[in-house]
């Protein structure tokens, strides 16, 4: 019996991999204020995954297609005058979720599937899922490394980047698609709620500790992996849902960082808030 045969060991490995993924992409989500879009993407993968499992094609493919539709749909809808990105995101979010729910309802075994989608079933990840997550992690890390400079430039000074001749629209799509792939990879294993909180909370906490991108990324990954491991331990110890306890630990890190960074002197920051 190898080390991988134990469900808890596999879950530990998955949590570490997912934490790295979430921490890396979370920095961009926080800097670019894409939390709501992330939320919408997690909901939008739902009908894609359900439809894929009904038709019988790869679940990951279904999620990617549905997520792509939403990412491009938000981009297209928010260009209309009088419609802003927030409303368009909201419409697509509820549409995606309702569609997914309607599709699930036509199948039997309704509520079981649904709750595993919401909170994930991290204890049932197989070697196949682990391999997928690892491959995605390598690809995402490579993409973010290559595009680090332009993304950073756009994140902090959009107009300046445009004036300097950076193709802003194209890099936006690169970032959206990266985010989407991360979400699609994470949701089946860890659930929608956990995916959002693992992406946003550690990065937001890291942002409080550092204003520079590299330390922030490192901290964000450390926080994400740490809260994953701690949450898993709490879950196995007290027999509560794993996804929920992981996201509560991530929130606790943010809640502790808030007053902690306030005490620390911050000479670099002007006193105007």
């Amino acid at each position, binding site marked *: 019996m190898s080390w991988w045969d134990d469900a808890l060991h596999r879950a530990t490995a998955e949590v570490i991999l997912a934490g790295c993924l979430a921490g890396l992409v979370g920095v961009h989500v*926080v800097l670019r204020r894409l939390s709501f879009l992330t939320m919408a993407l997690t909901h939008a993968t739902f009908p894609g995954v359900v439809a894929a499992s009904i038709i019988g094609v790869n679940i990951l493919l279904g999620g990617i297609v549905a997520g792509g539709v939403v990412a491009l749909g938000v981009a297209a809808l928010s260009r209309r005058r009088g419609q802003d990105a927030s409303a368009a995101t*909201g419409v697509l979010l509820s549409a995606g979720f*309702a569609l997914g729910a309607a599709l699930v309802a036509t199948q039997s075994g309704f509520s079981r599937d649904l*709750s595993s989608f*919401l909170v994930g079933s991290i204890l049932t990840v197989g070697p196949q899922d682990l391999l997928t997550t690892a491959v995605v992690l390598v690809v995402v890390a490579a993409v973010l490394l290559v595009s680090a400079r332009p993304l950073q430039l756009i994140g902090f000074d959009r107009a300046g980047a445009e004036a300097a001749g950076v193709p802003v629209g194209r890099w936006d799509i690169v970032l959206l698609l990266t985010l989407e792939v991360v979400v699609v990879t994470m949701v089946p294993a860890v659930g929608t709620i956990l995916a959002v909180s693992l992406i*946003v909370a550690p990065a937001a906490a890291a942002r409080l500790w550092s204003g520079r991108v590299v330390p922030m990324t490192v901290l964000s990954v450390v926080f994400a992996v740490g809260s994953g491991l701690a949450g898993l331990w709490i879950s196995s110890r007290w027999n509560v849902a794993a996804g929920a306890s992981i996201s509560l630990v991530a929130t606790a890190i943010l809640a502790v960082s808030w007053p902690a960074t306030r005490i620390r002197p911050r000479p670099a920051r002007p006193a105007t808030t």
Partner: protein
Amino acid sequence: MIEPFTLPFMARALAEIVLLALICGPVSVFVFARRLSFTSDALTHTVFPGVVIGFMAGQLFAGALVAAIVTAVALTLLTAGGRVSDDAATAVLLTAMFSIGVVLVSRRSSYTSDLTSFLFGRLLTVTPRQIAETAVLAVVVLIALAIGARALLFRTFDPAGAQAAGYRVFWLDLWLNLIVALVVVAAVRAVGTILVVALLIIPAAAARMVSDRLAVMVVTGTVLVVAAGYTGLLASWTASLHYGVALTSASAVVLVLVAVYLVLIPVRILRTGPARRT
């Protein structure tokens, strides 16, 4: 066309939707203008732990109400603080509160069915008592909105001007968040979270395609919700009865609303003309 609604449970479901339409039309216009889509999505999720605790204590309604008010205050404080960007703060509060609910529910045996009924509500098993509760809250929401409408409008379109004119922007934001929270409490148990989010966001977004005037948007939004409620219920009834497809009524109503939104996009383009830029 009317025949299904002669059955008591269908009539009650329609009555509930009509009541919600009356409040969601006006409130969704504010949600749209203030870009509070994410906040309303968050409020629907954060009511969940309140519902769970309330259910255990036997005071479901009170639990939801307390959770909603706590979240509305917390959201207003966090977004006014400015240390964490407001969308990140909203996302974290949402997931944290929802996780508390999930932790509480996961200790119970009827875990999955509880979650499902919270998400989708039980539109077809709405009781007269729930309709009465919704009606009371609807009156409260409409009165609160009527009192604050002028100040809220001022704050929406000119925050700096409102502050200069002596309005307390923080309290106005709290006022609006509380109104949205009350709508969520009124609706969530009967119709479930997805339908509430849709009712708070889509009516105004769709009405905006037809008109720029707020009063027209309010009326259009309300009419849209009533129409979508009727069509959705009818579609779900027909599909389940005559075609053997289990179409949940809440999803059907949402999908009709989204369809209306999509159909209205060309209207918007025709009305303004594609050549006109921002």
